[in-house]
Every structure is written in structure tokens, then in C-alpha cells.
């Protein structure tokens, strides 16, 4: 059995920031990621980030990944295991991993779950045709492997991911025929929408996909307008010649490990599904298990990074590590989170968090800050 102080599951923006913060406080950290490189979704983000300087605003996502990974590389007390999948968190505190066919058992003193989220699918006739992708898959193909996913794309969903991936497709020389959005208004940032509109990409709000057609692979998509009950209106169909349909209809938290660990979970629609109840230090109802990033509620990468620092600090502090100005650093992080969530766009996040807060069993981590 390998002894571990702090185990971080998932090396995306939240996990990397958690590792940096926990290691800076002197604890020994193990970051486990099932991919063969760290950075999570950051490595595919070619656009500049929003937020403030503290969350690397105006820096591109893949450059942020570099900055964080550089920091981790320089830290002696951070160990990284790539291509390693966490299989389970057990009652006795044992966590099992699989790496290259090897079964490994570890016993961490504290665990930060930062597993992120996965894409939601959409049911429509022939959605299993080759050429129907999730937006994340298209980003991976284009931005990680340099593979053009097709020539003519229908994007489903005008949230930030749908808008950003549409823009990236256009940058890669792929034509985006249209973006459809079932809601009456655009869900993503309007600056992203304006960016693709002035490249000539139409956005149909109040529209969805009716069905896909194709023999061996996707050849055609039929879209139609929705009524106020989100049912398709016959007679409003439009036919689009596309070889790619890209689905970006939201994310849901990858929370299986938290369920298994017995964390109290709540369904919060605004957060994309079941998310863990937690205290303000991001400790779940199970002592010693902390969360950060999309697994704690789907949000932007900027808030995931801040949550990562908070969870890293909480876990290290839970084990007795301190910083001389810990309260000051914590107040600043809390302030950053609050301001990122302060505007109208953050309203649903604020509502979601209010119903998730716990202050009973997790009180120990609050004490640790005193």
C-alpha cells in the first residue's frame, strides 16, 4: 500500500491549481490523471480567457495550461501519474488505481476530486451516424491532433462551448452552416456570438434538430423551429447539407467517485446534474474529501482554477499545514470567486451553491483555518 498525503484526481485547471496550492503549503501531493498529458480541457482552448488578471484573463487556455504545468514541474513535492484511472474510493479510505494494466492501492490522508464533467448527448433520429460528434471531440480532433473533422458543420447549442468551437472550426477552414439553439436566447457570451455572426454564421434561436440523414455517414440535417413548449413545429423544417453535426448541449459533472465514497449528493439543474454538498472550504460531507471545478458544478475554467486553489488550501490545512498569511490568501480567493459569480451570468451559479452548502460534519475544515 502506497502512503499518500493528498491525492488529486484529475489534472485539469481545478486539479492543477489545487496541487500548486497544497504543495506550496508543504504537503506531498499525488496528481492522478487518466489522460497521457495533464491540463484537462485547457489544452484545447485556443481562445483568450475572460475574468481578471488573477485568473490569467486575456491569456489563451493552452498557454494557461503551460504556465500551471511549469509551476508543477518545479515543485519537488508533487508527483504526477498520467494514463492512470482511479477505479474506486472505498469505505476504509483505500483508493484503487489502474495504470497500464497494473492495479495499485493507495491510502491518501485527504483527497481532492477534480474529475470535471462530460458532455450531454441529444436524442434525435440517426444520431448514431458517423459524423455526429460531441463538441469536445471536435475540439480534441482539431486542436490536439490537427485533424479536420469534416467540411460543413451544424452546431447544436449556442452556449459558450458551441460558440467557441464554431469559431475554432471557421479558423480551421471548416464551414459552419448554422448554429441552432433550442432556447429563445443565446446562452453563451454575446461577444462570442457576435464574433461568429460577423463571419457570416447564422444563429437560429428557438430551433433544434429534427433528424439526421445519411447512408454510410452523415449527409444531411433537418432542423425545425420549436414552439413555446419546445415541440417541433411541422412546416418550419430547413434542410442543411452537412457532414458534421456537433452537439454542445451542456455538460454533466463526472461524480461517480463521489457517489461511491458516500458523499451527500444533490440534483442541481443549474449545475448540470448531481453535485456534492460541500462547505465553503469545498469539503464534502465525507471528511477529508474535497471537490473543485466542474465536478462540483459546471462553470467556467476561471472559477474552476480559483476553486482548485481553495480546495488545495483546505486539504493541506486539514492535514495541519499552514501558511503565515493563510486567512489573507483565502479571503482573496473567496473574493475572486464571488466577483466572478457576481454578475447576472453568475446568478444561476449563486442559486445552485446556496442549496448545496453544508456546515455540519464538515465543520472540522473550518476549524483548521483558525
Amino acid at each position, binding site marked *: 500500500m502506497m502512503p499518500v498525503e493528498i491525492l488529486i484526481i484529475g489534472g485539469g485547471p481545478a486539479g492543477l491549481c489545487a496541487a500548486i496550492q497544497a504543495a506550496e503549503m508543504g504537503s506531498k501531493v499525488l496528481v492522478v490523471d487518466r489522460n497521457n498529458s495533464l491540463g484537462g480541457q485547457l489544452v484545447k482552448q485556443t481562445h*483568450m480567457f*475572460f475574468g481578471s488578471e488573477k485568473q490569467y484573463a486575456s491569456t489563451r487556455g493552452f498557454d494557461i495550461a503551460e504556465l500551471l504545468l511549469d509551476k508543477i514541474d518545479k515543485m519537488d513535492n508533487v508527483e504526477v501519474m498520467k494514463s492512470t484511472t482511479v477505479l474506486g474510493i472505498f469505505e476504509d479510505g483505500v483508493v484503487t488505481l489502474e495504470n497500464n494494466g497494473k492495479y495499485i492501492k493507495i491510502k491518501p490522508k485527504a483527497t481532492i476530486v477534480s474529475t470535471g464533467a462530460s458532455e450531454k448527448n441529444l436524442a434525435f433520429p440517426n444520431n448514431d451516424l458517423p459524423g455526429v460528434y460531441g463538441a469536445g471531440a471536435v475540439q480534441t480532433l482539431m486542436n490536439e491532433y490537427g485533424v479536420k473533422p469534416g467540411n460543413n458543420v451544424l452546431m447544436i447549442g449556442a452556449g459558450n462551448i458551441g460558440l467557441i468551437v464554431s469559431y475554432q472550426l471557421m479558423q480551421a477552414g471548416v464551414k459552419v452552416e448554422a448554429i441552432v439553439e433550442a432556447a429563445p436566447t443565446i446562452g453563451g457570451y454575446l*461577444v462570442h456570438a457576435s464574433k461568429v*455572426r460577423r463571419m457570416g454564421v447564422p444563429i437560429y434561436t428557438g430551433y433544434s434538430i429534427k433528424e439526421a440523414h445519411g447512408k454510410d455517414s452523415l449527409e444531411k440535417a433537418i432542423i425545425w423551429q420549436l414552439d413555446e413548449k419546445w415541440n417541433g413545429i411541422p412546416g418550419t423544417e430547413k434542410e442543411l447539407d452537412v457532414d458534421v453535426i456537433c452537439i454542445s448541449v451542456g455538460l454533466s459533472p463526472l461524480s461517480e467517485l463521489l457517489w461511491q465514497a458516500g458523499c451527500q449528493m444533490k440534483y442541481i439543474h443549474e449545475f448540470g446534474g448531481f453535485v456534492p454538498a460541500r462547505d465553503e472550504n469545498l469539503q464534502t460531507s465525507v471528511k477529508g474529501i474535497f471537490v473543485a471545478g466542474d465536478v462540483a458544478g459546471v462553470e467556467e475554467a476561471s472559477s474552476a482554477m480559483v476553486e482548485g486553489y481553495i480546495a488545495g488550501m483546505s486539504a493541506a490545512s486539514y492535514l495541519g499545514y499552514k501558511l503565515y498569511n493563510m486567512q489573507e490568501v483565502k479571503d482573496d480567493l473567496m473574493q475572486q470567486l464571488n466577483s466572478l459569480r457576481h*454578475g447576472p*451570468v453568475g446568478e444561476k451559479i449563486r442559486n445552485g451553491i446556496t442549496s448545496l452548502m453544508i456546515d455540519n460534519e464538515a465543520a472540522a475544515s473550518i476549524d483548521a483555518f483558525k
Partner: protein
Amino acid sequence: MLASTGVPTQKDLDKVFPSDERLSKGPTVIVECFQNIPCNPCYTACRTGSIKEFEDINDLPNVDHDLCNGCSLCVSNCPGLAISVLDMTYSDEEALLKIPYELIPLPTPNQIVKGLDREGKEICEVRVVKVINSKALDKTPIISIAVKKDFAKIIRNIRLEE
């Protein structure tokens, strides 16, 4: 309406365009930011004090066009590519418009390209005057285009001949 189309209306644009009197005095920024989102790099990039400090990071940019000299530092720093610089004093007939442009190939100076409006519709031909793609711009090149004054407030993008 912007929230359902992604295209700012004339009413939206009227809120962010400076007066014709200000435009007649020289270059200034047009900040097409209409939604309260957590973002402030335009303020941190500004060296002239014309983009005011944000009280709340979700505020809309507050621009004092009288202090702005059109230096363009904010243009490539805006993650939303929402900022352009308009100089109505460029010549008698033409205005100079600086826009962020993240596509390849980049145009070259003196090239005639299509000027597009905010819906991506081709409006008129425009002439590329300058292309800046320095390291400081971090992959958001700035293209200066000469546009007939009548179209200067309509054009917001370009398309190279296919």
C-alpha cells in the same frame, strides 16, 4: 435583438459609439461590450486612463473617449474581440478602421478585400493599410483597413477573396 441574434442593434451601437464631434477629432476605441460578464482586461491594458477601473468585474467598460488616443493596446487584449479603433480623420473620403483578425491567411497591405458588416454580409470593398502581428499581440493580429466614410460604422470584419 442582440440576445437572440448575436448582432447588436443600432440602439446597442448608439450606446458605444462616441459622438460625431469626437470622431472628427481623431482615432478612438469602439467597445462593443453589451453584456455584464466577469471580464476586465480592457481596463488593465489601457495606458491612457480612458477605460476606467471596474468597480465590479461584471460591469460594462466605462470609456472616456476624450482620453482615448486610439493606441489599440486593448484591441488584441479583449477576449471577446469586441474592440475596434475608428479614425474618421484618416483622409477626406476614407476612415481607418483597426480590427482584430484571427484567421489565416492574413491579408497583405494594399490588398483589396471584402468589408463585412456585423452579420457577415459583404457591404463594400475595403483596402488593407497595415497588418500588425507582433509577439505582443499574442496571435490576435490587428488589421487596419481604409473604408469609405459612409460605411465606416457598418464594417466590422473582412473576407479575403476565395
